[in-house]
Structure formats: C-alpha cells, structure tokens
C-alpha cells in the first residue's frame, strides 16, 4: 500500500490517536520517512496535542476548590449557615441597600449634613463659597441667610460638597436641580 500526501493529511489525526489499521500505519510510516512536509505536519500536530493536553495549560485560581465546596455546602444545607455567616450576609445586605440608596440620592455626596438638603448638580467646583462651623449649607459670601457671620470659612464648592454641605436654596438657587431630587425620592436621614 502506498499513500500520497493528501491521504496522509486526511489520516494524520487518526494516526496520532492510534486509530488507523496496521496496513495504513506501515504505509504512512514509509511516507513519513521520505516526505519532509508530511513529517512536519505530523510533528506539529503531535506538539499541538501535547501542549494543549498538558494540565498546566490552565491554572486554576487560588481558592477555587474552597469556594466551590462552600457553595455546595450552602446548596446542600441552606439552614446550616453559621451565626457568623448570617452576620456577614446581613452586613452585606445593609451595605448593598445603603449603596443603592446612596446611588439613588447622589453619586457624589457620601453623607449629607441636613435631612432636608437639596442636591446641587451644577455648582462650579472651583467656585469659592463660605461655610460656618456645625452648619449644613454653604453660601455665596454676603448671603443674607447666613445665620452668623462669625467663624466663616472660605472653601471651594467641591470641597464643601465633599464634606457633606449642600448649597443654600436661596443664594445658590440657580444651581439647584430637581432632576436629582424627584418628589418620590424619600428624604435622607442622617
């Protein structure tokens, strides 16, 4: 039996797997001994099989088995959660709920000082404003609604916002936006 290159290419994968009959194997061996190109195809295919078949081709993430078992455990025994597990779950729920609430109210203000504050979306961050100790709002200097002129501090609007101050609804009215504070949004409590 004599085989040509095309026949070798058709059977080379079966040859690698030991899936060819004895006659064909002998014929292919003879062909490989004389044909450089087919030998290169065979060697390359053997390399492919060897490389991809190697376990180290995929590295399993650290802790994979542990996490898998934990998830199975939860599925097998949902009631067997430990007290600590429940506390972690409860804390996570609070955090997630808080996160949603914060995201709904404002992406920027982590902690508003007033439960009645309105959020500003367009106060220029570099604008200089004034705040006073223990106050809740920031004002344009000279605003008549500043309760006390003592101990006033000048800061940038962005800094005041970061500290939880909200803009005065009078002197900074033009910067207030209703879009971030719709009537169906509950007021935040501090």
């Amino acid at each position, binding site marked *: 039996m004599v085989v040509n290159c095309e026949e070798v290419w058709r059977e080379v994968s079966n040859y690698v797997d030991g899936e060819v009959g004895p006659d064909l194997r002998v014929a292919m061996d003879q062909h490989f001994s004389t044909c450089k190109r087919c030998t290169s195809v065979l060697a390359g295919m053997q390399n492919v099989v060897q490389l991809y078949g190697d376990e180290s081709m995929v590295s399993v993430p650290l802790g*994979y088995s542990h996490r898998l078992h934990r998830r199975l455990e939860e599925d097998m025994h949902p009631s067997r959660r430990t007290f600590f597990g429940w506390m972690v779950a409860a804390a996570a729920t609070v955090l997630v709920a808080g996160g949603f609430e914060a995201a709904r109210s404002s992406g920027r203000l982590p902690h508003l000082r007033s439960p009645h504050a309105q959020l500003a979306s367009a106060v220029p961050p570099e604008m200089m404003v004034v705040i006073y100790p223990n106050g809740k709002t920031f004002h344009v200097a000279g605003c008549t609604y500043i309760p006390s002129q003592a101990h006033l501090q000048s800061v940038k609007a962005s800094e005041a916002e970061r500290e939880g101050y909200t803009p005065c609804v009078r002197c900074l009215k033009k910067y207030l936006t209703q879009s971030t504070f719709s009537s169906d949004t509950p007021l935040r409590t501090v």
Partner: protein
Amino acid sequence: MQEAATSLASSPPTQNEAALIERIRKGERELFYELIRPYERRVYAAAFAILRNEADAEDAAQEAVLKAFRYIKQFRSEAKFSTWLIQIAINEARMRRRKQHPELMEPIADRQDESGDYVPRDFADWREIPSETLERKEVRERLAEALASLGQIYRDVFILRDMQHLSIEETASALKISTASVKTRLLRARLMLRDLLAPGFGGPWFSQASFGKGAKPW
C-alpha cells in the same frame, strides 16, 4: 463497538464511582464532595476553554457542579460520570457565552462544508518542544488565542478530546454527534491549530531577543 469497549476499558475504573453515586442518591449527600474532587480541575478547565475569563469560568464551574448535584438522580449509570459532568460544564459555559455575546454569529468556519479536505498551509519546521514552555504566560496566551479563533464546532471537539481527554465515543456522546464527525472535526482542529502555531513556535515567539542570551531553549 469493539472500539468503544477498548477505549472505555483504558479509562480509570469507575466501580467505586458507581457505588458512591448510588449512596449519594440514597441520601448520603456529603459523599458528593468525594465524587467530584478528581474532576474539579477539569470542570474549571472546560469552562475556561470556552469563556476565557477566570471569574466567568469559576462561576460556570460552580453552577455546573451544583447542577450535577441537584440532578444526580437523572444521571444514567451506563454513562460515565466524568463525561456527564463535563458535558454539564460545557453546556453551562456555552449558555453563558451566548448570553454575554448574543451578537456573535457562529464563525464562518462552522458553516463551511466539513467534509471537504483541509490542506495544511504551513510547513514550518516545528521541532519537538518541551512542555516547560507552558510555564511562560505568553505561550499559554498564544495557545488560548489560537484555540479561540477556531470555529465553535471544531473548538468544542478539540477541548473535549485533547484537553479533557475524553475518548472519541465519549466526545461524540457529549456533543450528540457521530464518531465520524468527531474524527473529521478533530483532524481539522488539530491541523488548523498547527497552522496557526507552527510559524510562531518556529520563529518570532521564540526569537533570540526574547531569551536574551541568544540561544533557543531547545
């Protein structure tokens, strides 16, 4: 049929496994950990080969194992547990891939007539290479990229056969295709991968510069 028997006989003994499964079905659920332990890595590898993302692969692997646990009563004992489990993992990963990339059409290669001969395009001399090459992350990435570029029908056969080491019959059964199709697709997948990788391994990926001292490692 003779072929199937030979191939299954060369697999690890599954007697203990069958006993384990029976006990799990009868209520000893804790034994499930023991049953899956030898396959945990393979489940992850199967999911990773399809999803190519650690977090997604781990998630899919967990889901697959949970499904195997929930549906262990549906497992037919004439099948092999590992094949069944890997099949669940493959399905889970494929489902996620479809959800993540619904816009992706099947690669063109999938629509080609698979009965036509594939002619090797590259005859670069790809000499024997040591497996230590795989210690290099970039090599593993190249291999993963090459695999990902194959059409899905070829990739799935190759993953099951050459990475998961399932037999031809097991691969056929997992993918619900004939053994002849497995062989044809496997031939193509291997030839295509060889074409994709041989030029790189023969030269650019292992140029003198990348090894610094001027000598190839083999």
